[in-house]
Every structure is written in C-alpha cells, then in structure tokens.
C-alpha cells in the first residue's frame, strides 16, 4: 500500500515536471514520429539524395517547368529597347477582368514603392526607407517595356519574375497602363470592343 502511494506521487511529480516545458525554441514532443515525418520529401526539407542537400531542385538543364512561358528578350539595354517596340500585350489581358485582378496584384507587388496612383509616392518612399521612385507618367513607357522591367528589373528595382507568372505580369501591365491613362486597344478592335472580344473568347473556351 505504501509503495503504491509512493509510485503515484512520483508519477504525478514526473508529469508535473514534464508538463512544464517552457523552452519555446524547441518544438516539443510528438506521439509517433513516423506518422509526423513521412518518407516523402517536403518542399523545403533537407535530404542526402542531392548534392546540395536540398529537396528543392532546379529543373534539369534544357527543360522548363510546366506552364512556363519563355521570354525571348535579353536583359540588356538593347533587349529593353527591342521589347519596348516589339513586345505587344496579348488581347486576352485587355479586358476588365484582368484590370481588376491587375489592381489587386499591383496592391501586393508594386504600390508599396510606386504608390497607389503610380506617382512614386508609396509607403516605403514616404517613410524614406527607399529612395524616391519616378511616377509612371514622367517616363516614356509601353506595355512591352513595363513587362520587360517586371521581368528583369531596372535600376534599383529588382526582377519580379520569381514572384509573378506570365499572366500576372500582363495583368499588372494592364493596370499600370490604366494608371498612366494609356489607351489599350486590341489588334483589330477599338477600346470599347475589347470586353466583347474577351467575352467571345471566353464563350468559345467554355464550349470547347
């Protein structure tokens, strides 16, 4: 009887001590580790399988990821000049829908420096953490040159190619043109007909 009560009190004490894991820099305990840590590699896990010990690997040389869009203009002054003239916005991004999504994306990726109105008065510029940014209307820009700069960056602005895919880049270009007050016209249609063209294409997509 005496032994049992001693065991119980020891057990209670042990639980009390274990329950007081106050070190929050360690993750703590798990029931069955095998259920928590699977054999499959997680996106950012470490592994001995590859040379650099990372599960995240670049595509094999000569291949591209799925849904990847090849951009053929080079990251040079000549490439910029060429893109400015030759690179045209595909018609599918000229409608109201991409304008709406472009505005949302602009709010995430651009407005902190370029400002909500594209005047260069973003939050980071106002609190002087980042040097002043020129307003869009003070520069000679085309859809092609805007896309090129999102792709490669220019001056102090870095490349945003890793954060935005092809479609998102065009949607932002669409919104920047709106901020600049540029007229956006499709290849064979005037401004007002754009949304109709897009609607027709969408209808075709749904049928097929």
């Amino acid at each position: 009887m005496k032994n049992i009560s001693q065991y119980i009190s020891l057990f209670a004490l042990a639980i009390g001590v274990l329950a007081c894991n106050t070190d929050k820099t360690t993750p703590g305990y798990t029931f069955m580790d095998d259920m928590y840590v699977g054999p499959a590699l997680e996106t950012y896990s470490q592994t001995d399988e590859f040379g650099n010990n990372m599960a995240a690997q670049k595509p094999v040389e000569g291949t591209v990821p799925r849904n990847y869009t090849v951009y053929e203009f080079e990251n040079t002054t000549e490439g910029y000049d060429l893109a400015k003239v030759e690179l045209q916005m595909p018609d599918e991004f000229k409608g109201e829908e991409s304008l709406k999504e472009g505005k949302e994306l602009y709010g995430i990726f651009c407005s902190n420096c370029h400002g909500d109105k594209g005047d260069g008065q973003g939050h980071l510029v106002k609190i002087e953490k980042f040097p002043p940014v020129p307003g869009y209307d003070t520069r000679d820009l085309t859809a092609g040159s805007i896309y090129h700069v999102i792709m490669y960056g220019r001056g102090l602005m870095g490349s945003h190619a890793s954060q935005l895919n092809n479609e998102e880049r065009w949607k932002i270009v669409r919104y920047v043109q709106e901020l600049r007050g540029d007229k956006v016209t499709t290849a064979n249609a005037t401004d007002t007909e754009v949304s109709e063209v897009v609607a027709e294409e969408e209808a075709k997509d749904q049928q097929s």
Partner: protein
Amino acid sequence: MPLNFKFATLISVTTHLRFMLRIQFKRFFTFLILVLALGFHTSALAFEGDAANGKKLFKANCAACHKLDKKLIGPALGDMTERRSAEWLVAWIRDNGALRASGDADAQAVFDEYNGMPMTAFPALSDQDIYDILQYSIEGDAPAVPQGGTPTPTGEPVATTPDYVLPMLFVLGAVFVLLLILLIKMKNTLRVVQGKDAESIGDEISAFRKGLVANKFLMTIGTLAVGIFVLYFAYWWLMGIGVEKDYQPVQPIAFSHKVHAGQNKIDCNYCHSSARHSKTSGIPSTNVCMNCHKYVDGSEIVDESGQLKYGGDRSPEIAKIYAAIGWDVDKLAYIEGYEQKAVQWVRVHNLPDLVYFNHAQHVTAGGVDCETCHGPVSEMDVLKQYSDLTMGWCVECHRETEVNTDNGYYDGYHENIKEKYHTDKITVDKIGGLECGKCHY
C-alpha cells in the same frame, strides 16, 4: 549665393607665380594647395542655384539611381561639380545620348564605366532647374537627424511578469513558516504551564498522521482528490503532445516581421508569393530580399536612443543575405560564378505528414486572411506559432466559415445544399469540408 572668384583667383595665381620663385619650397607647397583648393571651389560655383528647389528636383528625378555620398545605380553626385563643368553637366543631364553622339570623350567614358546603361534624358529641365540641382549637390542635406519610425528589432520578448513577484513569494513563505513555529512554541508553553511534557515537532507530525489514517472519510476524499488531480494533469499533458503552439525557434537571420510587415507594410504575398498558387506559402528566396536590400543595407537603422545602431556600418544580419546570394557591396553587383548558399530557416508551422494542407486552397479559393491562422504576425519581432494547428481547431473553423457563393456556376448546387440542410448558411463543412479523405489520405 552668387560667388564668382574666377577672375580674382586668376590674378592672385599669376601674381604669386612670380612671387613663389623667391619663396622657400615648403611655403610654396602649402600655397599651391591653397590655390588649387580655391580654384576648384570657384569653378564649382560659377552658377546660381536654389538648393531647396534642387533638392525637390533631385528627389523626383535623380534619387532613384543616384545618391550624393555613394555609388548606387549611377555614380555618387556629391562632388560632380568638382569633376565636371556646369556646362557639361547641363548638356549631360538634358540629353546624355546626344552628348555621347557628339563625340564627347568624358561622356563616353562614364557610359562605358556603367556597362552601357544609359541614363534617362531630361529634356524638360531648364538650365535653372539643373543649376538648382547642382547647388543642392554641393550643399547636401542638413546635418543628419536620424529618421524616426525605424526602431530596430530587438529579438527579445518583453517579460510580462514583474520582477518582484518571486522574492515576494519567498518572503510570504518565510513568514508562514515563522508563524507555524511560533504556534507550536506557544502550544508547548501552554502544555508546560498545565504541567504536561513538551512535544517535539516529530511527535506532532506522527500524531497528525495517526489521526489522519484513522479518519476513513478524509482518506477516501483525499485519495480521490489526488487521483483526479493527477488524471487532470496527465490528460492535459497528453493532449499537449504534438501541439506546438507558441513554438518560436531561433532563426539563422534575425528577421523581424514587425519591421517588414508592420512598419514597412509589405504585403505578406509579396515575399510569400507562392501562397496564392501552391501548397506551401513559400519561403522567399534571397533574390526577393535583394529587391529591397540591394539598397537597404541596414546602416541607417537607429536604436531606441536615436543613435545609429551599427555606427553607420552595414547590419551584420543583412550581410548574411549578401553572403548567401553573393552580392558585392562595393561594386553593387552580383559576384560572377559565386557558389550561392541556402539560408537555413527553421520551419515554424509543422503539420504532421498524416494531414494535407494547401495554402492556395485557403488563400486564393477561400479568401482567408493570413492573420486568421498566423495571428498578429506584423507585431512579432520573432515569429511564433499562434494557433494550435490541431484537428479540432481546423474543424471548428470549417463549421463556422461561410463559403463564397458568387460563382454562378454552382448556383444549383448551393440551392440543393440549402434544401438538404434547411439552412441559408453554407459553411465549409456543408460542401464536404469535414470529410476525412479531404485532408487524410
């Protein structure tokens, strides 16, 4: 301030050219320096400009690529009037392409030095505008008063328990023991007065135990109470296994979400850009850091007292980014052929492998704010796990959250659900958000 000493200087130079033949070498040398300095100074000020207006123009047109005191995209401009004549600068700023085309060697040299990156032409600036900018480049900013609103991350959580609580408890405990001893002493004194033997403390305790063991009722209640107490703690301890709430690991770089998401108001999705598209929210690769830290090297960070935290040097934490990606801070360029290293961030939110969670499904399809699960991240210097991340926590949210019914394609489906469950509120669990196989497979 119109200052034109050019003519006067010329006279003084010629006069002293004759004079210096007669003076000693040492004195001549000091004089030469003085004259040279004067000469530079006067040629710089051969124009009249308003520095205040110049500052405004500089911020609007030049500051994106130039600083006065150091090289950025283009050269440092603080000493440009010492290096070039005002006429040359006007021509260059107005249209540097035309100046280069005219065969100006200096212009071509600058263009080549900066890898053929042409400067934007500013045909709209008048001569006076450019003089104002030049004047500003000479005068510069007023002596630096550190910018407010940039307190640095301290990385240490603020202690919430006041310092005096623990000593206070000790004092109270001591007083309690003292009172107990006094009580026993008094009892003994009374016993002696009555003519009985005094009892030691050991006698007292054994008598108390005998009395306790004899009392069956008290023993039963006591055992039950201890049993429930033990079970209660055992239960909650077992329930806490695998729940890593408040987990706050030490990260390899002292990155502060409070500074980036709070003060700088950078959108979560800017850095965690894959949260909108994929299973993981995406740990930003260092090239995303460099979008700002190409420029921001931490030398301007001030501490609480308003002093420069690193004495004007780069922040050692930001230097870790440069070391990882291979950024040459002097040349302001990436090092060719550098073997880049991964920053080994410690993952804070760990879901067990037995459950599937997808960020895109919640962020893009569900429109759930990041803070709903991750808590007030913009107030955390060191990130910690805010939510339980238990199954009960998931299920609770799925039962309460209404789904977006804007998509007309699903109208009929939504009507069926409303009929089936006799409700107008379509929550996540009504569209299958509680099915086992949705998360466990």
